[in-house]
């Protein structure tokens, strides 16, 4: 493949990775704090997308100024993500912390099943899609190929912003430090007077928003149909596992790795496209059981 094709594959890979990263970021954050792998996270992606589309339609039907479209995406993500995250935390996760990890995983799986059907009941089964934003922002040419500014600039920008923002929040703010503390050692943090309950609620809401944000940002270029959540779930899962659970920086690299592998596959060996994320996941886990960027502590006896 020649240089220009290389550039193209790079572009597509990056914008795809950006979305993947946002979703994975939420998943890994939640795991870090709750020590629960939230299977329902995939549904948050779907709900974010559907809700964003609904807002988009509202904007056009109420003939509100079209520039609202982009902020609307963010609002959609914050509202639905925060809402669902809170509900999940208060009604389920909070109550299963002391339970067998298997049960914890299963409860989130059950929540996933419920959300899948609820979503179908609310938004139906017809493909949903509102692309106003993308058309407003227009396109630009790269190596003779037209890209939308949206996918080439907005998506990576938001992803980076989310990454930097989260880093700053966890590292620089008091509340963020509490979250980090709980991540490292829940008991100790509680002993030090950290309000664990609040931290967990915050985390679920935040993680939910990130997952929903992934969906919201995908909605202008993707038709949302039932089942989209399950696919994104397992993909973001692959990212998180490859990076190592709870690894925020790692998730970014893993998402890039998977995104690029996928887009290069389309050019070089299209048959392997779908296989790529999972191949990478298997290979990484076989060599590094805890993922690329995390390490296990030896058990004290």
């Amino acid at each position, binding site marked *: 493949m020649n240089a220009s094709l290389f550039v193209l594959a790079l572009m597509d890979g990056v914008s795809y990775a950006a979305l993947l990263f946002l979703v994975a970021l939420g998943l890994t954050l939640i795991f870090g704090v709750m020590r629960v792998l939230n299977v329902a996270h995939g549904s948050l992606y779907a709900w974010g997308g559907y809700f964003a589309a609904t807002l988009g339609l509202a904007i056009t039907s109420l003939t509100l100024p079209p520039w609202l479209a982009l902020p609307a995406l963010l609002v959609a993500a914050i509202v639905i993500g925060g809402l669902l995250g809170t509900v999940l935390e208060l009604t389920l996760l909070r109550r299963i912390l002391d339970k067998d990890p*298997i049960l914890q995983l299963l409860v989130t799986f059950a929540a996933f*099943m419920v959300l899948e059907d609820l979503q179908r009941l609310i938004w139906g089964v017809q493909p949903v899609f509102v692309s106003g934003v993308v058309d407003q922002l227009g396109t630009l040419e790269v190596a003779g190929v037209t890209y939308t500014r949206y996918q080439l600039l907005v998506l990576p920008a938001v992803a980076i912003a989310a990454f930097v923002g989260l880093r700053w929040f966890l590292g620089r703010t008091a509340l963020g430090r509490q979250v980090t503390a709980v991540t490292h050692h829940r008991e100790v943090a509680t002993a030090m007077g950290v309000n664990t309950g609040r931290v967990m609620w915050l985390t679920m809401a935040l993680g939910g928003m990130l997952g929903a944000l992934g969906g919201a940002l995908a909605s202008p270029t993707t038709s949302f149909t039932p089942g989209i959540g399950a696919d994104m779930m397992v993909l973001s899962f692959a990212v998180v596992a490859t990076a190592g659970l709870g690894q925020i920086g790692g998730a970014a690299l893993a998402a890039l790795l998977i995104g690029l592998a996928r887009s290069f596959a389309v050019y070089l060996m299209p*048959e392997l496209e779908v296989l790529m994320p999972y191949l990478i996941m298997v290979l990484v*886990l076989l060599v590094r059981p805890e993922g690329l960027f995390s390490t296990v502590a030896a058990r004290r006896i």
Partner: protein
Amino acid sequence: MASNRIVLVAGALLAAVVAVTAAAPWLKTPVLLALANGLAVCGVIVLIRAGQVSFGHAMFASLAGYGVAFMGRAWQLDALLLIALGTLGAALAGALIGLFMVRYRGIFFGMLNLAFSMVLFSVLGKFGHVTGGTDGLRFDRPTFAGQTLERAGFETALLALALVLALAAGWVVMRYFASANGQALAAIKTNETRLEYLGISAKRVFWGGYVLSATLCGLGGSVFALTQGLVTPEMGYWVRSGEIVFIAILGGSGHALGAFIGAFVFEFVKLYAAALLTGAWQMVLGLVLIVMVFVAPTGIFGLLSRRLAGAGASR
């Protein structure tokens, strides 16, 4: 829980199944599917015994299923032989993959299984010229023990076989749990360090359990494939794997009987929820499980055993 009571319950269940399917032949398919699921769940229960949960075990069902389909198409083998070979295939795959898996525990174990199963899933879906792609592979109804049967007869025979297999699997699993290896397997859940300091290899013990679980999933997959005469990659999708674990918890992972009780509840809730309130069966099942986890974490079997043997004996 007194074992003769269990026998009673099992017997009652058996009689019920036979009577019901005889009264309403159309029920054979769902019952067969439930039994197939139950067999796979037995496999997952073995892992849960060791405190491990796999989000990819449907891969062994689908491996066996595709084995059955391939051999059924290529050599028109007998149903019994197909089941045997399909299961064997899954067992071998389990033995091989198990070599990697024994190093992993907890979430990592679950993830690696998921990863393997998704690779298989994508491969089956992608290389259509061999695997029939996402439409899967069809194969004609094979002979059964040398007999060429009409659909009705074939399903009756298959059902009888599945019942026998279910009883056998249940017996094997319970016997295994009681055995030295089974007890050591259960010890992996609580303390591997001590196992090592007893001179017992946790990895070897776990490997044994993994192979058994893969075999049982394969057995389930083979029966499933023969029931349908069709295998699709969906058989190995991660959501299917999730369902198997789901059923195990629903039915109660303490006892093989729980696996089959759970499988039947699951199958019929799914069937009727799908028929009555279209498009909401997942929600119904999801809510059922959530309730179960909070009110009866030991599953339906846990409740049942407490009923039968009085409180406290549910362990």
